[in-house]
């Protein structure tokens, strides 16, 4: 056995030290295995085992990925975004104000006594919040939902969700869902722990079904010393400060503003004269959404459409801290800005400084103050303030008696004067020529300003630019004198002296000598035009508000200012300009480069000119980074390096040479030398390296060998959006601020001041800061009014159905307005069929007359915005319908079914005259050829009007109709939409009554109010129907027909048909027979005998039947006995037979 054990012992493994396997292992161990994934270490284990399963896995993975993908949107958030609007919404008495106070306290550690209107605070280094409370008015709720980024939805847990909350959620859904966080308060009112838990759970789930499952719901468990628990508030504020937001489509296409300050700058004298005079109002706020254009029309929710008459930006009253490297906010950087609540102290404005005098100085009191005192105070304040832009306005005031001059106007003056002098020097030139000259004049004067990289018409820039502006002026002045000095020189010399440094100029002048055509000259002059092309194009425009005023003044003052010596030149030049404009006035329009004049062209075939453009062809020489030859050389150079120093394999020995470091060094050297030699080459090399890295990344991706789907389309879309957003951010970055605003608009995040002229006085006198002041910019064509077609669905919680032409209040876009809708249904042929009422649970079409709004914008409809409690209680839920806009048009096509009824007047064979369908021949003429139909289904056509009974016509039918037939004509009738559009102007209503806006009333409402009873139409009353039985005439068969009928159907002889009646008649005429006594006796006896006999017969019959029964029974018995006997006999025989057979067997 021991031997066995010895033999059984396995040979120990001897690892190979040489050969193929050893080499393999060595190679494997060379790579550091520690940081490899399992898949990399052991790829075989992860190989595909089953193709089907792999396919399924792949498909699932792709499904998951594609579910995550969204259409990439261009990110439009600005670099310094506006404060986030946090709205606190909820029914009354849930603790909204307490929550705001606590949040402010937790963020900036100060107590705010009264919270009114939006409160802006700095919460972190990159984030500001605007807190706003929403009062219990559906108008405010709508406006808040349109501008809030984050909504804190407060709910009294002891009561549960109230209708307002559901209404608000519905409003949000329609106007673009902001982020919503629920907050449960009054949790301490529920004492029972188990009940508390249950309430929390039910409320949470109800909230989830409304918002989305998993939506955050906060619990504020109770109030301690009139405040919520500090920990819970802290948590809430943390959540707010890390919240991320999704762009909403409406707000990504419209600029808007939540005004946080209002000033009335109307002349006090005017107000004193007439307190109802229209006011000039200034509103302030942060621009949000997209950049706001200067001369756009805005809608102030609750007031109406307004044109901004002045828009400018101010320094941020609540700025973000400048970017120093530190973790926390300094105490002084935690700012708060809330003018309506009286927080914030001194406020610098464009033309005034406001000092908050702690409550004794509200707007209303200001109005009541004496004019003189106020003016005095204002003057003092104004003189003390040093806002930079004031300089320009001061200039204006100095000359206000006569002509008006601004610093920039002086500038303008000079350039005009300059061009004038030039013009006068060559007056005999043609109109077009002088036009051009003017242009070149501009660029001459601009040249200098450009060199100092500043644009002279920029007024809105900050204080440091003011000095620069002055410098510019000086420069201009110098330039002016220079040019004046040289004005005797010829035109060409003039331009020569300016740009003589450049070769180009030389060339051009040489060239000019050869050709004398003025038009051609003009063209070439234009070719080397001005560096400052902006001025050439937009020079006529006023940029900045002040120049606008100057222009206007200039225009108006032109005539009467001629005597003033200082402005004498200016006036003449403007006259000149006018003359020029007049000449241009009636030019033929032509979009060619040389519009009307035909210049002599350069002869490009000549060698000198040929050289100029030869490189614009593929056959020409290319620029360095495109030239194939140079690129090839470069390639060769780098490849050569690779070959010299790079990896290569010696095929003969099988040895590999790796020389990475060396090659890197070499390439560095190479790069350096190249850079010295040629900048572009190094760039190209860089580019190449980048490309190579990209290629490597794409193709030798070592870590993961999984099969991947192709997402290149999505990736490219994403990259495109990203590129666009980067471009959007970067392209105007270096631009001067004033010009940037001109080009880009007032970008979101800027604090702007907008002046509105001619505001209704009620807006100021009835101002209530607890109502949000939402100013939404309107895009192109949105200020127009037209017919809007939309799809709409009655809200399933709304108790009534909606009736066509009942006034409806619609919240669409920025607006809230009342209008008269018409409901319709779109048929299969796209015809809108009129509906009197909205259908239940399905969408229908709705047309109304209202503001033009882009397609797909959502809207909601209310029947009343009145907050009268009894009405709300009656309705329950106030949102009547929701929907979205489909189409906009300037006319509508809604058809109503119409059945015209007529009766025959006279009938021929297939033709009939019909009356009562129309009233005039004209109407008939309109319906010629229309199809008609009788009740019995005979179809026909209207032919022509008759002249006798007015409105009767001739019609043909497919068969003869009857006089009793009723003829129908089925047509469509166009229903017009009433042109009624009334904005809800709730902000103009008196304070405390703002939620009682009432627009147009329905007829029903009016009748109910005035107690008018409707008198019923007797024809419409329901009465019992009395029907006479129908009497038919006897059937008469004509003789000819009778003959033709078979005998069976022929009416039979009179005897047959009339037997009954005839017999009756026969016997009725007979004489009665009276018998004599004997006969009577005989007949009696006979009768008696007969009865006896019958009785006898009857008895006998009975007897026989009994007898028969008896006999039958007997017979049956006999039969049965017989059968029995026979059976036994059979039995016997059978037994016998069987015995017999047995015997015979025994024998066998």
């Amino acid at each position, binding site marked *: 056995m021991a031997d066995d054990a010895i033999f059984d012992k396995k040979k120990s493994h001897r690892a190979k030290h040489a050969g193929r396997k050893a080499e393999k292992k060595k190679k494997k161990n060379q790579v550091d295995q520690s940081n490899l994934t399992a898949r990399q270490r052991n790829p075989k284990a992860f190989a595909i085992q089953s193709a089907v399963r792999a396919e399924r896995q792949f498909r699932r993975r792709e499904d998951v990925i594609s579910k995550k993908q969204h259409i990439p949107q*261009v990110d439009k958030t600005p670099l310094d975004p506006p404060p986030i609007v946090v709205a606190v919404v909820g029914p009354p008495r849930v603790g909204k104000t307490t929550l705001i106070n606590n949040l402010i306290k937790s963020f900036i550690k100060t107590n705010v006594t009264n919270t009114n209107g939006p409160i802006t605070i700095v919460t972190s280094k990159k984030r500001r919040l605007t807190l706003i409370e929403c009062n219990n008015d559906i108008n405010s709720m709508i406006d808040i939902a349109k501008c809030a980024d984050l909504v804190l939805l407060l709910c009294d847990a002891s009561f549960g969700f109230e209708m307002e909350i559901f209404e608000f959620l519905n409003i949000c859904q329609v106007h673009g869902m902001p982020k919503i966080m629920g907050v449960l308060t009054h949790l301490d009112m529920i004492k029972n722990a188990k009940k508390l838990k249950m309430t929390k759970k039910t409320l949470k789930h109800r909230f989830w079904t409304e918002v989305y499952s998993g939506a955050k719901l906060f619990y504020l468990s109770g109030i301690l010393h009139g405040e919520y628990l500090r920990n819970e508030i802290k948590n809430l504020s943390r959540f707010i400060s890390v919240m991320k937001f999704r762009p909403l489509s409406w707000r*990504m*296409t419209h600029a808007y503003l939540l005004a946080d300050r209002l000033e009335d700058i109307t002349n006090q004298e005017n107000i004193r004269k007439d307190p109802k005079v229209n006011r000039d109002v200034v509103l302030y706020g942060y621009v949000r959404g*997209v950049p706001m*254009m200067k*001369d*756009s029309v805005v809608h102030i929710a609750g007031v109406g459409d307004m044109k901004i008459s002045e828009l400018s930006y101010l320094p941020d009253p609540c700025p973000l801290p400048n970017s120093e490297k530190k973790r926390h906010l300094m105490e002084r950087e935690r700012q708060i800005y809330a003018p309506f609540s009286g927080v914030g102290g001194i406020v610098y404005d464009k033309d005034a400084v406001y000092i908050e005098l702690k409550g004794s100085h509200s707007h209303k009191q200001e109005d009541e103050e004496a004019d003189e005192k106020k003016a005095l105070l204002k003057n003092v304040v104004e003189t003390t303030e040093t806002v930079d832009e004031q300089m320009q306005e001061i200039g204006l005031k100095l000359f206000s008696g006569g002509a008006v001059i601004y610093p920039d106007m002086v500038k303008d003056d000079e350039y005009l004067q300059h061009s004038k002098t030039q013009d006068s020097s060559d007056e005999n030139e043609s109109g077009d020529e002088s036009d051009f000259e003017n242009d070149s004049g501009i660029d001459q004067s601009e040249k200098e300003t450009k060199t100092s990289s500043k644009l002279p018409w920029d007024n809105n820039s900050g204080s440091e630019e003011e000095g620069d502006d002055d410098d510019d002026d000086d420069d201009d002045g110098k330039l002016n004198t220079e040019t004046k000095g040289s004005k005797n020189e010829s035109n060409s010399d003039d331009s020569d002296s300016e740009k003589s440094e450049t*070769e180009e100029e030389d060339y051009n002048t040489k060239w000019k000598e050869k050709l004398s055509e003025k038009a051609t000259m003009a063209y070439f002059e234009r070719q080397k*035009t001005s560096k*400052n092309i*902006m001025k*050439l*194009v*937009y020079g006529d425009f006023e940029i900045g508000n002040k120049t606008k005023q100057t222009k206007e003044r200039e225009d108006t003052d032109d005539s009467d200012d001629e005597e003033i010596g200082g402005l004498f030149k200016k006036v003449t030049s403007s006259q000149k300009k006018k003359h020029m*404009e*007049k000449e*241009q*006035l*009636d030019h*033929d*329009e*032509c*979009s*060619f*480069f040389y*519009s009307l004049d035909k210049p002599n*062209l*350069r*002869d*490009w*075939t000549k060698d000198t000119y*040929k*050289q100029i453009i*030869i*490189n*614009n*062809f*593929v*056959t*020409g*020489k290319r*620029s*360095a980074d495109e030239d194939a030859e140079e690129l090839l050389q470069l390639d060769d150079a780098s490849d050569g390096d690779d070959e010299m120093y790079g990896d290569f394999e010696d095929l003969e020995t099988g040895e590999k040479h790796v020389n990475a470091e060396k090659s890197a060094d070499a390439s560095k050297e190479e790069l350096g030398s190249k850079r010295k030699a040629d900048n572009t080459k190094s760039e190209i090399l860089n580019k190449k390296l980048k490309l190579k890295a990209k290629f490597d990344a794409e193709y030798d991706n070592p870590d993961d060998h999984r099969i991947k789907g192709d997402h290149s389309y999505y990736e490219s879309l994403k990259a495109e959006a990203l590129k*666009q957003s980067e*471009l*959007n951010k970067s392209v*105007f970055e270096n*631009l001067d601020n004033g*010009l940037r605003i*001109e*080009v880009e608009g007032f970008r979101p995040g800027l604090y702007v001041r907008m002046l509105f002229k001619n505001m209704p006085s009620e807006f100021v006198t009835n101002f209530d800061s607890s109502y949000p002041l939402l100013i939404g910019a309107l895009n*192109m*064509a949105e200020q127009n009014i037209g017919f809007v077609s939309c799809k709409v669905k009655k809200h399933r919680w709304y108790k009534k159905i909606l009736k066509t032409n009942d006034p409806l209040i619609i919240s669409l876009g920025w607006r809230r307005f009342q209008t008269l809708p018409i409901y319709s249904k779109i048929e299969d042929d796209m015809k809108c069929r009129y509906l009197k009422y909205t259908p239940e649970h399905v969408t229908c079409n709705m047309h109304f007359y209202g503001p*033009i709004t*882009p397609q*797909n914008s959502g809207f909601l409809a209310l029947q009343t915005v009145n907050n009268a409690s009894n009405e709300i209680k009656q309705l329950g839920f106030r949102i009547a319908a929701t929907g979205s806009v*489909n*189409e906009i*048009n300037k*006319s509508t096509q809604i058809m109503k079914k119409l059945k015209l009824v007529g009766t025959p007047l006279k009938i021929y064979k297939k033709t009939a005259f019909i009356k009562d369908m129309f009233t005039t021949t004209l109407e008939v003429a309109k319906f010629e050829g229309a199809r008609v139909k009788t009740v019995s289904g005979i179809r026909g056509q209207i032919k022509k009007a008759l002249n006798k009974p007015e409105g009767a016509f001739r019609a043909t039918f497919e068969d003869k109709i009857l006089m009793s037939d009723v003829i129908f004509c089925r047509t469509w009738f166009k229903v017009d939409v009433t042109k009624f559009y009334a904005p809800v102007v709730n902000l103009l209503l008196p304070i405390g009554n703002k939620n009682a806006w009432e627009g147009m009333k329905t007829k029903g409402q009016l009748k109910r109010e005035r107690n008018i009873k409707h008198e019923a139409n007797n024809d419409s009353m329901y009465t019992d129907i009395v029907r006479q039985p129908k009497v038919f005439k006897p059937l008469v068969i004509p003789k000819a027909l009778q003959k033709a009928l078979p005998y069976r159907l022929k009416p039979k002889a009179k005897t047959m048909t009339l037997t009954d009646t005839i017999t009756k008649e026969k016997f009725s005429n007979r004489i009665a027979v009276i018998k004599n006594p004997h006969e009577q006796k005989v007949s009696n006896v006979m009768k008696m005998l007969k009865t006896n006999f019958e009785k006898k017969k009857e008895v006998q019959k009975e007897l026989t039947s009994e007898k028969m029964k008896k006999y039958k029974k007997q017979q049956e018995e006999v039969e049965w006995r017989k059968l029995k006997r026979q059976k036994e006999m059979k039995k016997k025989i059978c037994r016998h037979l069987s015995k017999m057979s047995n015997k015979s067997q025994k024998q066998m």
Partner: protein
Amino acid sequence: MPAILHNDVLLYKGSNLFRQRLLLSTLSGRAIKIEEIRSTHDDPGLREYEVNLIRLLDKITNGSRVELSETGTSLYFQPGILVGGQINHSCCTQRGIGYYLEVLLALGPFCKEPLNAVLQGVTHHDLDVSVDKIKSAALPILLKFILVDDGLELKVVRRGAPPLGGGEIVFKCPVRRHLRPLQWSKWGLVKRIRGVVYALRVSPTMANRVVETAKGVMLNFLPDVYINTDQCRGPNAGKSPAFGISLLAETNDKTFYCAESKSVEAGTGDATLPEDLGRECALKLLDEIHRGGAVDSAFQWILALWMALGQKDVSECIVGPLSDYTIKFLQHLKEFFGVMFKLEVLSSDDDEMSSDDEEKTSSAQKVKMTCIGIGYVNISKRTL
């Protein structure tokens, strides 16, 4: 001359740039009033071709209101909603079809229904871009903005020369909800030259003679030159005799430059030599190539329009020197839409520095136009 704004109505004076104003008014939905239309002329008031343009605008819109004064010297125009669809219009022969077609091209993408317009009139006119030029140089620009070509088409059914016309074209244009922002700063090098020479009611040799000289000039620069002759006969030749040429230069970055010339109107006295014509056109094309830029100089304005009407994103294009017409158009864009372009003159010397000194003068001034679109959406289109 800036407009005066009065009650939200833009007030202009003079018949100059009549078409631009009507076009922009229709797009922006803002009412305009034009006064003093040729009020001092012997023949005051609107010309026939201008009235014809108003007719055309009326056909493609719904709810437009036009009020003309008795003398025709003042006009109030309140635009309606762009409808588009099937249109048949016979254009006035005082101007070419191009005058009307450019308007349709600019409005086309913003109609309610895809535009399918049949225009009759003068296809080639001295004052207006010819239909050939629009077809070859303007449609590619629109294609850049709408990206997908679903039914953008311009077909020249018949050619017609002034004074009598008799030409016919069919223009189809798809509708879009909005245009894409466009960055177009490279236009490449001219790689091929194509052309069409048409001869209407004149001897076919005329066409061949034009081809010969035009080709002769162009072959100095590029070997890939191919010029077609379109000898029209019978009803296809319109009603008046004429001949002309349009040359097209295509770059390797899909930019098209086009130049054209035509013979003078018959009956005016002097005649045009076909050789002169061919040479003139070739020189015009070279001039256009010299000017360079991403689009042909005649279509700078339409590029600017579509850039301005884009979404609220930055568009950036480089064009050759701005023509007067474009400058006026930019001013009008500012008035109607409030959009202002950032215009920069590119110093072309940078690239040229390395090459010889002579060539420094070579390329014409280039202008970089940058703007943010106004976020214009097609409000006419129906959504379902």
